[in-house]
């Protein structure tokens, strides 16, 4: 069972934008909002050179990394071909405009990534 923990309201995330979620350990998690209010969460590190994906331009259900313009699919966390590599995904729950992440995932996934 996921251990949902509230993060922010959907409206706290800019449309076609992102917010960073601080963690006790490990790199931040980026939560994204698409133009039709879908919310995705991935580790805020590009699989290429660790760029902060939260700072990229969001389009469709993808984000372009701000460092070298790799396109990352928000659903899978994976780079668009021909680039290769994936970043950690995190489960998201949206209920009544409230965004929640799984506290267990936040505490355990990709915690070795430098903050």
């Amino acid at each position, binding site marked *: 069972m996921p251990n949902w923990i509230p993060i922010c309201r959907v409206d706290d995330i*800019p449309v076609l934008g992102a917010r960073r979620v601080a*963690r006790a350990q490990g790199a931040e998690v980026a939560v994204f909002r698409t133009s039709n209010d879908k919310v995705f969460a991935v580790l805020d590190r590009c699989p290429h050179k660790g760029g902060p994906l939260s700072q990229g331009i969001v389009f*469709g259900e993808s984000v372009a990394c701000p460092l070298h313009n790799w396109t990352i699919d928000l659903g899978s966390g994976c780079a668009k071909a021909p680039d290769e590599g994936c970043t950690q995904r995190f489960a998201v729950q949206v209920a009544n405009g409230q965004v929640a992440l799984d506290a267990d995932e936040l505490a355990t996934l990709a915690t070795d990534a430098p903050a």
Partner: protein
Amino acid sequence: MTTPQKLRLVMVGNGMAGVRTLEELLKLSPDLYDITVFGSEPHPNYNRILLSPVLAGEQTLDEIILNPLDWYRDNGITLHTGWTVTQVDRVRRIVHAENGAGEKRTAPYDRLLLATGSNPFILPVPGVELDGVLAYRDIADTQAMIDAATQYRKAVVIGGGLLGLEAANGLMKRGMDVTVVHVAPWLMERQLDKTAGQLLQKSLQERGMKFLIGAQTQALVGGPQGRVQGIRFKDGSEVAADLVVMAVGIRPNTALAESMRLHCQRGIVVSDTMQSVTDPRIYAVGECASHRGIAYGLVAPLFEQGKVLANHLAQFGIGRYSGSLTSTKLKVTGIDLFSAGDFMGSDDGETEEIVLSDPHEGVYKKLVIRNDQLVGACLYGDTVDGSWYFKLLREGRSVADIRDKLMFGESNIGDVGHEGHSKAASMPDDAEVCGCNGVTKGSICKAIQDKGLFTLDEVRKHTKASASCGSCTGLVEQILMFTAGGDYSATPKKKAICGCTDHSHQDVREAIRLGKLLSLTEVMQALEWRTPNGCATCRPALNYYLISTWPKEAQDDPQSRYINERSHANIQKDGTYSVIPRMWGGETTADELRRIADAVDKYKIPTVKVTGGQRIDLLGVKKEDLVNVWKDIGMPSGHAYAKALRTVKTCVGSEWCRFGTQDSTQMGKDLERALWRMYAPHKVKLAVSGCPRNCAEAGIKDVGVIGVDSGWEIYIAGNGGIKTEVAQFFVKLKTAQEVLQYSGAFLQLYREEAWYLERTCHYVSRVGMDTVKKRILDDAEGRRALWERLQFSLDGEPDPWFNFEEAKVDTRQFTPVTPGASHA
């Protein structure tokens, strides 16, 4: 329950263009069709361009297979190799095929794709049926030549075009004594002029190839065993031959289409969606298709056709093929050749030629100009500028202002990042081609071979070579040319901004202006964008076009700006930011320096650096600290992060300098105060020097101002970056007021007309200096209007470091959210 039946797609032909179309289709709609492919050859799809290296023993047949049998199986495609389609019943929509054993097979279709390619043209002379007479088209021909080379000695190749010379070269490398018979007065007369053709012949002769130029074949003479033993010419002379290869051209293979009563005219006539004009269920692609009267024979246009066709088969219904401009870049046994357009010129006195000929170095270049436009180019021995000439040719812009430099090429002066190499062939495998992304020649070659890449775009995507600054594009094209073989170079006539649209930058700028479009949504609706909210390439461009065309009216969308312009600081490799406050004209005070020093201590900023633009850069600032650093320093934004006015660099000038003739510092400060907060298609840098010693280095700035005793000289469109470009003299002015007006008007023209991410040097090189002079110098009213529009745009613009609301700075970005915190 039954699953709905899929549409049936049958493809006749199993070659490069057809299979590429299927690949594109599977990417878009993998499950729409049941696909069946008939191929006469007993092989899966292979790279026909690489038959020459196979013949020459440089590659094996296995290495040139593009789609192994597994690929067909994994994609659910039914493949019939060795089956030739003999008849198509268009009424009942059934394809009839036959194999070598005379067995028959049929396949019903809903959509039929003809990709039958082309056939070699065989001279109508007696003796073509003899043993030892071959065409050069497919694997079987190639294998027959390889076998002949092991038993026989004398080969004659009829035809001195690309294919013939490649065949001759391959046979020579396999130890045969080769003579090339060519009826035209020089080799490759369709691609080269006489001089270049003769240079090529000389160089091939030095390698041992023999030539009979102007010889007309009358008959092939047979021996007692029915094998060819010689060729007789019209003048009665003969040469001996145990192998004759016919390479006198190809013809679109339309026999099947004609039997189906499809309209054919030098190919199967198709529309812009590659649909046959006779039967809407039938499409044609590749060398067999005639589009607007042209049957293309190069890979790149055929792949473009395939992309458009796949889109229609997938029922997306967007995209049209509007033809390609092609150039020829050939690699014949280590010789670089390039030609494009009307390289022969005409005798009517309408064309002029610029020629450079250096027989000792084996370099020959001819440029053909008509009405001040470059209309043709023929290069031999040094082709690195081929792509630049091709670009000029395509754009058709006036070259009057660069005539004197044209011959020396774009890469002649100022390119950096690849050790000054201009000939990729002579570079070792470990030499770096792309200095931006650290890509070596070896890794580019490997990617081209391993991944089967054909176009510059594909190489860029896979290797990143030439994908950043682009200064090594010419080298990458050369590598592509001799690794992928043959010619690949062709471009759509109009370049789309990105994959979201077919519209070019120019189209979009005009639509925004003429339709008074004021938001991204309006633009995307009016121009029928394919994607719901664009991509990271088009959105920043559209946003800039909106705010520069309709200042104070259009909506600025921060989410469509790059991160630097959204956070108003420069992102660094570790995700921290740099802060560069504005120092007017490069001057600062003790007070400012103290505040900077205090901020460095307080926020533990790791690096403090003096920039090339006479300012101070604070590096390694955490995003959370940005707002407080700006506030503590209390100086205006330096916009060092933006596509906007950066700095106005100055020398000390007449206030202190014993040589100074003008007060350059004051002039610089006035310019900077007049122009700051000015967003532009790309970054803009100015400099003002107080005398011709030019200590402010004004010669490499977008606008460089140099004080002389009698006034100010203005230079424009310089660049100190990737390509060092010396600014060109623009005008000499008397007063500081004039300097402001002329500089401002030029920059406003650039803001209104340049394409996004074009620097002033690229913009001026695209439209021509003459055009800029006409608009600014000759048209006083237009100049004043431009200057007024710029002032209107900049009036009341906020400083994003302090006026967050007006500058639409989303301050939420500076604070991370904490899980579990209250969000009532």
